[in-house]
């Protein structure tokens, strides 16, 4: 089953997202800030990263930017969840390479569907690459 890193500084939200995704059978790891997230991303491989934007040490946009600029981690799917809903931030997140953006309050079902879709898109594109080779 796919492994997901959830980065969120709000304890309640972190626990909730972990439980919701865990219920669907994913392997969930969590980080409470950008620094902890970078450590975990350094040592482990993930299929999807679900990140908040406003966090201590390093914000979500820095996480997105670092993942996209690293050759070995470029394939990881990124979903941003944030209460920030202004146009500039959303477009900036997509410009940096986020795959999806959910504005809080979120719908649990929607998050699950978007993760499933993201994973299936990644799978089909990787199959296509293998076939071409």
């Amino acid at each position, binding site marked *: 089953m796919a492994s997901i890193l959830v980065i969120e500084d*709000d304890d*309640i*939200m972190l*626990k*909730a997202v972990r*439980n*919701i995704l865990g*219920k669907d059978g994913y392997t969930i790891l969590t980080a409470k800030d950008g620094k902890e997230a970078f450590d975990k991303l350094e040592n482990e491989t993930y299929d999807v990263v679900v990140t908040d934007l406003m966090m201590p040490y390093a914000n979500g946009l820095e996480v997105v930017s670092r993942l996209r600029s690293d050759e070995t981690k470029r394939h990881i799917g990124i979903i941003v969840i944030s*209460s920030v809903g202004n146009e500039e931030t959303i477009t900036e997140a997509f410009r940096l390479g986020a795959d999806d953006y959910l504005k*809080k*309050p*979120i*719908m*649990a*079902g*929607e998050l699950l569907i978007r993760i499933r879709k993201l994973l299936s898109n990644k799978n089909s594109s990787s199959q296509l690459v293998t076939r071409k080779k």
Partner: protein
Amino acid sequence: MWKDLIDLLFQAYEQFSLLPLFIEIALAFIFIAILSTLVAYSAILYKRYRAYIYDKRMAYISPKIEDMITDQVLLNPNLGMDIPLENIEFDEQTLSDKMYRKPFVRQMLIDTLISYRKNFRGEVGDLLRKLYIDMGLEKDSFGKMKTLRWERKIKAVVELTQMDISISDVTILPLTNSSNPALRAAARNAYIQLSKNEPFKFFDIATEPLLPWDQLEMFKIITTTKDIAIPNFSRWVSYSTNKSIVSFCLKLIAHYDQQSAIPAVMDLLANKDHYFRADAINCLGKLSAEVAEDKLVKIYNNQPLNCQIEILQALGRIASGKHLEFLKSEFLYSSNFDIRMNAARSIIKHNTQNSRLMVEELMEVTDDENQLIIKHCLNPLIKY
């Protein structure tokens, strides 16, 4: 023993009264200082002790509450099964746990549910609301509404609003006009969010002012609340005696581009209060009310500076081109710098063939200072 103590105090007083006056005053000051320090330290210690006890209780209870919400709501097996919300039942045994009868725990439960509701909507959000109702927590919130302490009333109003529980007009309407500014603001914001048909009904009875900060908060709520019924705000512009309500309505009229309100706003041009008139002129400009242009120019000479500047700005926003000559004469002959600056900006804002020719002509005939003003206004980086 008491007798000895009283004797001792008497002796001390006798000795004190024999001392010179300045020594007596100094001693009194020392005594008061020591006493104040002791009281202050005791208060700090007591508060810290209470905070320590609270944190300790939180650390013990909080995980239990979160686990309960996770089991009953987030991991509820009926979620995502298309089962109507009213048919989803919670585990009775868990909900009737003795722990959840304690007021302290119940308050914590409410706070936690609100935190979850801020993060989740949809089915999970609705189920959190159901849990709040099924556990009778809404009664706790309504109970808080009956207390005399305003901070508890605010807490109750916020809780009920966050949980989308409607509050009867009889209860909330008087609070929207409370003399306490914080309570008044909370109640007004709640009324807008909770009232489905007439969210601005409290404007009718509001006698207390709508403070500038409250206007900002309210504007944010009005523009971000979904499915809010937006009325024609000219109703309050015409009839309200509350100046801050009228001023706020003018801003809302401009925001929602309520063209039908133009006649009501134009009536305000005859108002005695020049701040009011300035707000009305600003609103007419933002509505691009071409019908008001002639009247604005007509009253221009009788207005104070703030209204004159608003008129010049309004003419730039309306930009019909009918009063370019008026703007030109104000730019050329006014002795006031702000007037010249706003007149130049309004001419440039027209952005028509005529206005561009006029700017070129002014650049040739006018003095150095006015040329600088025009160059400044032509700079696209300087926003108007």
